[in-house]
């Protein structure tokens, strides 16, 4: 009885849960990547969400909405379309400027990117659902990168 002190009991509880519901192997590296990415974004200037509109489409399981972000003189218009468990983003940067747009899904360090065309358009396809943010990296390196706040698809 004496060996089953409160601490000993709690130690037993910890041991059995560690064995029976272990931390998924990928979790620590995935969280390190997510935290590091978020930390590196701290220096990136954030765009401001100025407009959000939802347009529901008839087809089952699909919907779309538009988002508008502003940063300085740059306007970013996004049309996000969800189809099943994937989504696509059609974007329009005004005024057009050569830049790379990178999608940073919340859970996955893999990124999706696209270069803005002369008319300011870009598209990102086959994106996972969940939390997403876009980072805009002007090719003019004297211009700092900026990013949208995280939004959920």
């Amino acid at each position: 009885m004496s060996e089953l002190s409160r601490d000993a009991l709690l130690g037993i509880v910890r041991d059995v849960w560690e064995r029976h519901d272990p931390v998924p192997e990928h979790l620590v590296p995935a969280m390190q990547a997510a935290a590091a990415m978020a930390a590196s974004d701290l220096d990136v200037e954030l765009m401001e969400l100025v407009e959000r509109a939802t347009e529901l489409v008839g087809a089952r399981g699909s919907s779309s909405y538009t988002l508008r972000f502003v940063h300085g003189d740059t306007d970013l218009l996004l049309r996000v379309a969800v189809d099943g468990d994937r989504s696509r983003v059609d974007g329009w940067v005004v005024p057009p400027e050569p830049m790379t747009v990178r999608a940073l899904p919340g859970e996955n360090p893999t990124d999706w990117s696209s270069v803005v065309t002369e008319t300011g358009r870009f598209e990102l396809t086959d994106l996972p659902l969940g939390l997403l943010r876009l980072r805009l990296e002007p090719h003019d390196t004297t211009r700092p990168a900026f990013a949208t706040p995280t939004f959920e698809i």
Partner: protein
Amino acid sequence: MSTRTNEVWAQATDGFNRWVAGDPAGLDDLVAAMTPVLWHVVRSYRLSEAAAEDVVQTTWLALVRRRAAIVDATAIGGWLTTTARREAWRVAQGDHRTLPVADEDLEPRIPAQRSAEDAAVQHDEGDRIWAAVDGLPERCRRLLRIVAFENRPDYRELASDLGMPVGSIGPTRGRCLAKLRVALMQTGEYR
């Protein structure tokens, strides 16, 4: 609390301090030290594995965004577990990703799937101890799991999460520990 838990908390504080001082490896170490604790705390809220992973990630992103607001580095572990529990509770209340009946609730009634190899040793000491912990009432299982992995859980929030008056957490924990002690004695592994 046990030496090991204190070590985890000390590692967390150390990692946080190094990160704030400009060393990115400090953040890595903090995440490595505390992610397992967050996992066990969050999973006690009947969340699916996927939902639990989301909650753990939300917690880390909240830390990165709000790190300037954390004045006391020695309290970083508590800040993280409190944030994770709050988010887990919120998600468990109404998120569609929450399984209506979590796998862990079924375990006591449905024999776990075992491989032939496992079956051969299923009556070993470890399994009997697991059965003792697993056979506790749901509220005890959750409360003891949280208390075991956290350093000093905030009883007020814990009480509201578990739907109990704040004053009853201490006595309930005592009763749950007593139940576990009896169950463990009955396994014959402890005398």
